[in-house]
């Protein structure tokens, strides 16, 4: 299969879906800029023009509601946020309206507002420009939340979102945009709620989303050299959540690590741990380990920031800890995100 970069896969999904469905339009701050949101909206602007690729003023609050209104009568807005942090201003329309629309108004139709939100971490982006908020959005019934980790999933999950009738938030880690991988030429949807086993292994299960899938894979590679089998589960969407794939794996391995770029309290990692506790009492040979952000905002200071972000090295440590496996040389690899430097 031909290879595409993650950002190209997104661009291709947008263009193909817009060609087949005239109700789709793209809206966001700077989407029509020559750079085109990390290259993802450039081609759509070139092909469909500014009548279908709308540059939004800094009006996140109103625009989120405008998207719901447009969706209520048949349009399919694809709203883009250059930082997910800015979505706090859009929360009312997304949470109080879009997520509740179908249920609250007695199932008279949906508002399929599709949101792409860029998240990033590292290199001094700081407290208000590096938050991964999938856990926040995952809290609300009525929303789907997808976290594509590969170019193929970036395309397939976006295609799926643009064909369903449910508001969806797709979280894109900017550390992944240059990642290449095989991507189908056609617009083939990937269903939500179906995780993927990224690495097979029988000793410990690592459940991860988005960027952390790659950190987990690096950890798995390294531990494979020590004869330790790590099963890496790429959850793909955190709502709906593939409980089956998690439970089947943990039933085999008896050990669970959850690696996540959001906080532990009330987060994705808490949810996965709860699912295992509810469904597999007694299956764990050791308590679950959660590798998340420490309980503080993101600092700019370099050493503090390095201590802040969970990475492959810490996944290795956690796995070894669960296996009483001693120590291993970690200098062999770096944090995936350490390849992402500014400028910002």
């Amino acid at each position, binding site marked *: 299969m031909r290879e595409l970069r993650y950002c190209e896969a997104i661009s291709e999904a947008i263009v193909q879906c817009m060609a087949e469905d005239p109700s789709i339009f793209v809206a966001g701050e700077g989407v029509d800029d020559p*750079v085109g949101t990390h290259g993802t909206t450039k081609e759509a602007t070139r092909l469909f023009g500014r009548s279908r690729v709308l540059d939004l003023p800094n009006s996140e609050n109103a625009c989120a509601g405008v998207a719901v209104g447009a969706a209520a009568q048949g349009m399919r807005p694809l709203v883009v946020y250059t930082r997910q942090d800015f979505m706090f201003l859009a929360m009312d329309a997304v949470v109080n309206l879009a997520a509740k629309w179908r249920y609250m108004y007695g199932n008279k139709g949906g508002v399929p507002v599709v949101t792409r939100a860029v998240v990033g971490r590292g*290199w001094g982006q*700081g407290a208000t420009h590096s938050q991964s908020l999938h856990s926040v959005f995952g809290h609300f019934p009525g929303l789907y939340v997808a976290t594509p980790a590969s170019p193929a999933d970036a395309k397939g999950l976006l295609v799926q979102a643009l064909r369903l009738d449910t508001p969806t938030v797709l979280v894109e880690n900017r550390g992944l945009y240059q990642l290449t991988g095989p991507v189908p030429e056609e617009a083939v949807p990937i269903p939500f709620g179906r995780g993927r086993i990224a690495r097979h292994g029988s000793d410990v299960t690592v459940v991860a989303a988005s960027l952390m899938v790659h950190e987990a894979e690096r950890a798995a590679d390294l531990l494979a050299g020590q004869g330790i089998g790590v099963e890496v589960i790429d959850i793909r969407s955190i709502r709906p959540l593939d409980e089956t794939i998690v439970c089947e794996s943990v039933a085999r391995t008896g050990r669970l690590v959850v690696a996540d770029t959001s906080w532990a309290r009330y987060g994705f990692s808490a949810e996965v741990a709860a699912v295992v506790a509810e469904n597999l009492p007694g299956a764990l040979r050791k308590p679950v380990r959660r590798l998340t952000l420490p*309980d*503080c905002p993101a*600092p*700019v200071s370099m050493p503090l920031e390095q201590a*802040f972000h969970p990475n492959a090295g810490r996944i290795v440590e956690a796995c070894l800890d669960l296996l009483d496996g001693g120590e291993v040389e970690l200098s062999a690899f770096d944090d995936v995100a350490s390849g992402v430097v*500014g400028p*910002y």
Partner: protein
Amino acid sequence: MSSTETQPEDTPIDHRTDLLRQMLRIRRFEERCAELYSASKIRGFLHLYVGEEAVAVGVTHALSEDDALVSTYRDHGHALARGVPMDAVMAEMYGKATGCSRGRGGSMHLFDVRRRFYGGNAIVAGGLPLSVGLALGDVMSGRRRVSACFFGDGAVAEGEFHECLNLAALWQLPVLFCCENNLYAMGTALNQAQAVTDLALRASSYGLTSWPVDGMDVIAVAEAAQRAVEGVRAGAGPCFLELRTYRFRAHSMYDPDRYRDKEEIERWKQRDPIDGLAADLRAHGELTDDELSGIEEGIKKELDQAVAMAETAPVEPVEDLTRFVYAERPR
């Protein structure tokens, strides 16, 4: 507030020359930051204020030490003009423990409560409600102080802008709204974001006294701000200044700036606030070449020292990573 840390209060310095010096100080600071950024000494965000210096210098000149100031992510010029020491700002850019925010906030989150500098704010329009709240606090506790707030033309598109102008006018609060209209919000031109681009007119519709000011002329800014502050302090209600300016450089270091044509940028550079004032002072015999190089030398010395201090300053210990998320003792 025209004095800074290193400039003793009683130095007899000509008023217009001092404004020039302050603008140059900001310009040179930021030019150095851009170099340090390319050398990866400074990481993260860097939004330069080059071209807009007359706004920060003119407005802060009209404020007294007691007044409050709220900033944006383009905050270096605001902080320096307000008197936040250059070494504390530079250390913050470096993420060092001696930075004005302990190295935790970085370029977009400069902060100095002693100088009532209530922060760079990385969310567009996020500072406006803060300034209204500061003013409300003053009124409720019977203090006669002004709260000034900088924000860009992009902030006018946010709901908070409109809510805040209304609240300040409704409650007649002592707020000075300073809109830095540089015609662009990242790549979006003002006329692509606003149906009515006369922002002073927009503000007046909320019942605020407002007027446009040539933001490339520091004397015009200082005089307008003086007049505005007098009214606000006297209890005449909030005031709005639309400071018409331009950024000479890209939005941030990430921005390739392909949305503005070069001619437009060049046209504005002809109106460089620093060159303009320097030429005027020279023409009036108020500034000699020697005096100008003296000013430059003084700035260079201060800057070199700030960089040297930032280079060798300690970083916060990693053990403190999760400290100060919550108060460690009651207020």
